[in-house]
């Protein structure tokens, strides 16, 4: 995109700056629209599974429901509890929202369509996702109220636990792709299965890792069945109990942006990202971002499906799954994967 602006007669530095700003807007604005629509989709899918009709009043098929909610929330009064730590109370939702947007910088949307093509793409995502917990922890503490505080404690422990296994899972992917550059990870999946199928998913060694990653990403985004941070039966609404109007909406948007990010990661790391499912010429006629979008929507459907059907975990079960099941298993698969690669790819 920089070349385009250079051709318009700008100096290289200005062209780079304008291109980067345009790139950020090109990602962030559709993402916000996508989050609004995905909240609608979530409610519709959830309603359909409960044999209800879901939002169906605002706009055709209720399509504009999220925008109506947004407008309503925007017009509400922001209430800050007197006992709250005011500065941190207001910063916390902003942190959640910003961090949820930051990780999208290294997602490849098509071949060449990536904002920051850096060598350490996957590590960057890991680093950013480890920041996500701060919004929750700070909001829980700054609210100066018991339920949000419990929720913050739970969130801190839960996210750290699952980050460990996610780290090892990503190591397996990096080993197979031979790079932590997101673009090269996608390209390594071209024709991966028998030279026909694109994606790490179709590998006996990587399939269990994919399943673990899917479950861990549910836990990492605190979606059902791991939504212990906002378990309404125990903690009212968890860390967002004291929040109202836009500060609440920012949590909401950030949460769904994170869910979309995790769906995208599932698609990029295991389902070949922007590549079509089969490595056959005519499928490449459909542009790459359409394939990526379809895969993201598929994973989002899985997320909603799980939310609608699986009951919430107990807290000790959550910890047991993270530390006693996923951590040893993902470590085992790091050893297995590197051993297999030593025998095949790097055999002397």
């Amino acid at each position, binding site marked *: 995109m920089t070349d385009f602006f250079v051709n318009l007669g700008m100096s290289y530095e200005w062209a780079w700056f304008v291109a980067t700003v345009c790139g950020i807007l090109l990602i962030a604005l559709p993402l916000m629209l996508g989050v609004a629509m995905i909240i609608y989709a979530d409610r519709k899918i959830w309603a359909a599974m409960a044999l209800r009709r879901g939002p169906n009043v605002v706009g055709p098929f209720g399509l504009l429901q999220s925008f109506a909610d947004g407008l309503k929330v925007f017009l509400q009064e922001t209430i800050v509890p007197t006992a709250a730590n005011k500065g941190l109370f207001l910063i916390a939702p902003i942190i959640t929202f910003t961090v949820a947007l930051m990780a999208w910088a290294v997602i490849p949307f098509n071949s060449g369509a990536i904002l920051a093509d850096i*060598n350490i793409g996957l*590590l960057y995502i*890991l*680093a950013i996702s*480890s*920041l996500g*917990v*701060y919004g929750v922890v700070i909001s829980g503490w700054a609210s100066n109220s018991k339920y949000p505080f419990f929720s913050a404690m739970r969130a801190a422990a839960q996210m*750290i636990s699952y980050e460990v296994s996610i780290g090892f899972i990503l190591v397996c992917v990096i080993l197979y792709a031979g790079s932590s550059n997101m673009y090269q990870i996608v390209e390594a999946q071209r024709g991966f299965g028998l030279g026909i199928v694109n994606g790490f998913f179709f590998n006996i060694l990587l399939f269990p890792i994919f399943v673990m990653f899917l479950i861990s990403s549910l836990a990492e985004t605190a979606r059902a069945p791991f939504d212990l941070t906002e378990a309404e039966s125990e903690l009212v609404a968890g860390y967002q109990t004291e929040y109202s109007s836009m500060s609440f909406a920012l949590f909401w948007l950030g949460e769904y942006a994170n869910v979309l990010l995790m769906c995208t990661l599932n698609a990029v790391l295991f389902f070949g990202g922007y590549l079509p499912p089969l490595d056959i010429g005519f499928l490449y006629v459909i542009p790459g971002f359409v394939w990526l979008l379809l895969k993201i929507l598929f994973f989002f459907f899985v997320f909603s499906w799980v939310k609608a059907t699986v009951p919430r975990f107990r807290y*000790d079960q959550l910890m047991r799954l993270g530390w006693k099941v996923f951590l040893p298993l993902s470590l085992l698969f790091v050893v297995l994967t590197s051993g297999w690669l030593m025998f095949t790819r790097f055999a002397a």
Partner: protein
Amino acid sequence: MIQTITFYLFSALVIASACFVIMARNPVHSVLWLILAFFNAAALMVLVGAEFIAMLLVIVYVGAVAVLFLFVVMMLDIDFSELRAGFIKNAPLGALIALVLFVELFVGLVAWNAGGVTLGTPDGTSAAVEGASNIQSIGALLYGKYLFLFEAAGVILLVAMVGAIVLTLRHRPNPRSQNIAKQVSRRPEDATINTRPEVGAGVKL
């Protein structure tokens, strides 16, 4: 130009947040300022081209260590007046530590002015791989030249971990832990019986 501005921006932020760490009255605020300092230090690392170290700094320190730190500080019930009361008593010790740090800094600066130290062998065998990325050069060094040191560090960490577990392990007399396999393998036939008792006879269990 832009590098200079960014460098001074991040350096100023690191120093400012480090000052706020010790000046903040609330310990939770201190930890949050510390996290900001870590984050800006990572930005400085990116600026000098050590992007791998920067990411590790964020993942390990900001993402894990600082969260646990925050966790502990939030749980503590700290009496601020009591903390401030001990200030005079501990002031000489603090001054001593400050003096030691200052002397170290001074000696370091003098030594640096006297000329740089050549690291490794002059033939450049331990130098970073030319033209390779951060991860590749660190990996080549860590798993090649310093393999045994690296493994020794791993063994020491393992011993430390086992030690910590042994120190905190308590055997409770009758733990009521959940046996999930046993629960899952339990069938309705094991748990329930169908009876058809005579009217007025009741059921014998």
